[in-house]
């Protein structure tokens, strides 16, 4: 191997004009006040970090959403609204509605009815301000051959003239909102958690983008913004929620939130409203008269990968 002087650790430390010893003795001598050089270096590094991360200092010191006080939340919302108005030229609503009392959300999908038309995929993209390029879609519609339930044999890239195709069935998969979610357990900074109404959410400002949660999720229910999300300004949905569909930034993880901005004000999620065959059902698991409760009581249901004990609140059912 060729010898490279610059990469030799010994020669480096030897050549360095200001070694650690000298600096520390300097500090001690001046009674813990940094000298001008150290002070300037510190200021420069803080300014540099702010410049590189391209975020305001308020964002830089912002707390986790769960630990914020009422005033801090209000200030943050005001700041975000201002940011979004500058970026998209629209007045945004950034909701922070809490869970509705006595609600635990569940979802059911009739895989006998689903025809695989992907209307839900695109309704979700428009409602939840997902990046168009690079493309992020919370719902994957898997196409299986009849009689086969092996995920390895399924495809999401089917594109015939018309659906449903004979001999195939379709299974849309999105975040299953597990009651025992592996994704929230692995988060090293607690940027993702389960809300009291059962929705698994992400605080995008607290997320460090390590993607542990994506590795932990057995349903591929989480998506990472590898690049700055691109959404046309005329396609942006300005009715948002802090924990839901507000515009995301680069290097954060995002996911389906059952349209938290809709369900927290009593509306159905966008995918339920758009499904042309009525295969998607949503409701309150704690209400014995809700659609979802009746489905679980009366129909044959199953949950994906139930052997993993993730306990999804997303049920697949057979209506007949």
């Amino acid at each position, binding site marked *: 191997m060729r010898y490279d002087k610059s990469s030799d650790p010994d020669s480096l430390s030897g050549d360095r004009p200001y070694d650690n010893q000298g600096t520390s003795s300097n500090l001690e001598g001046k009674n813990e006040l940094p000298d001008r050089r150290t002070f300037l270096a510190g200021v420069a590094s803080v300014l540099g970090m702010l410049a590189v991360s391209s975020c305001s200092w308020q964002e830089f010191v912002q707390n986790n959403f769960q630990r914020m006080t009422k005033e801090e939340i209000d200030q943050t919302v005001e700041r975000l609204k201002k940011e979004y108005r500058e970026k998209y030229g629209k007045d945004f609503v950034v909701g922070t509605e809490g869970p509705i009392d006595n609600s635990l959300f569940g979802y059911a999908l009739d895989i006998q009815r689903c025809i695989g038309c*992907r209307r839900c995929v695109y309704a979700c993209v428009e409602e939840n301000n997902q990046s168009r390029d690079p493309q992020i*879609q919370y719902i994957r519609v898997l196409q299986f051959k009849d009689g086969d339930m092996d995920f390895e044999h399924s495809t999401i*890239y089917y594109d015939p003239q018309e*659906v449903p195709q004979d001999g195939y069935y379709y299974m849309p998969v999105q975040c299953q909102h597990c009651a025992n979610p592996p994704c929230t357990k692995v988060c090293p900074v607690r940027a993702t958690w389960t809300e009291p109404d059962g929705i698994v959410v992400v605080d995008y400002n607290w997320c460090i983008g390590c993607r542990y949660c994506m590795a932990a999720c057995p349903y591929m229910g989480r998506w990472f913004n590898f690049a700055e999300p691109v959404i046309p300004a005329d396609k942006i949905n300005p009715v948002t929620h802090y924990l839901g569909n507000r515009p995301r930034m680069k290097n954060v993880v995002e996911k389906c939130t059952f349209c938290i901005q809709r369900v927290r004000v009593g509306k159905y999620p966008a995918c339920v409203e758009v499904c*042309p065959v009525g295969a998607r059902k949503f409701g309150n698991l704690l209400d014995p008269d809700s659609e979802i409760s009746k*489905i679980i009581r009366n129909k044959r249901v199953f949950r994906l990968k139930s052997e993993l004990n993730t306990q999804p609140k997303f049920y697949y059912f057979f209506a007949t």
Partner: protein
Amino acid sequence: MKPKIFIPLVTALVIGIVGACIETGPGLAIAQIQEDAEALKAIQAPTSDQEFPVPLRPLPQTITPCRACHGPEKDFPVNFKRREDLLVHNNIRLNHGGIRLWCLDCHHPDNRNYLLPLSDGKNIEFEQSYLLCGKCHGTIYRDWRDGIHGKRTGSWNGTKNYYLCITCHDPHNPKFKPMAPMPPPKKPWTPIEVQAKH
């Protein structure tokens, strides 16, 4: 307050009866008049006797009133024979239940403004056609009432918009039509030699 409400009700009833007489001619039986009057009352209070609030979907005005052509003394007498040529109604291609079903298995033979009654003997309004659908498709009807079959929009904990059977299924041709799917997701970048294999 009471008379104020009562007067328009009576007026509407009288107008309705008179209108029915003019439309159907003097040869109409008295029983028929009473039936029409009762029906009018029912229309005035459409949601009172319903199990749950559903949108009312009356027949399109272009082909009503049916009595203009169909009736005991009109040009088109009741014909129970199954045939392919439906004359005026040639826009309808009946494709429901194969050869086992015919127009008059749902439509009332003597009064085309109604559908056939259930066992209670009361003719079914077109607006409540789901009751008639439930006559054959009982299990589906039960699921629909529970919100399992069919689609609802609106609010999961409040007012819902019900989609009726006929909102999605054409009663004359109820099977769902295939539709074009939305575009598939973009494939992640892969080397060309790998793309060729898949």
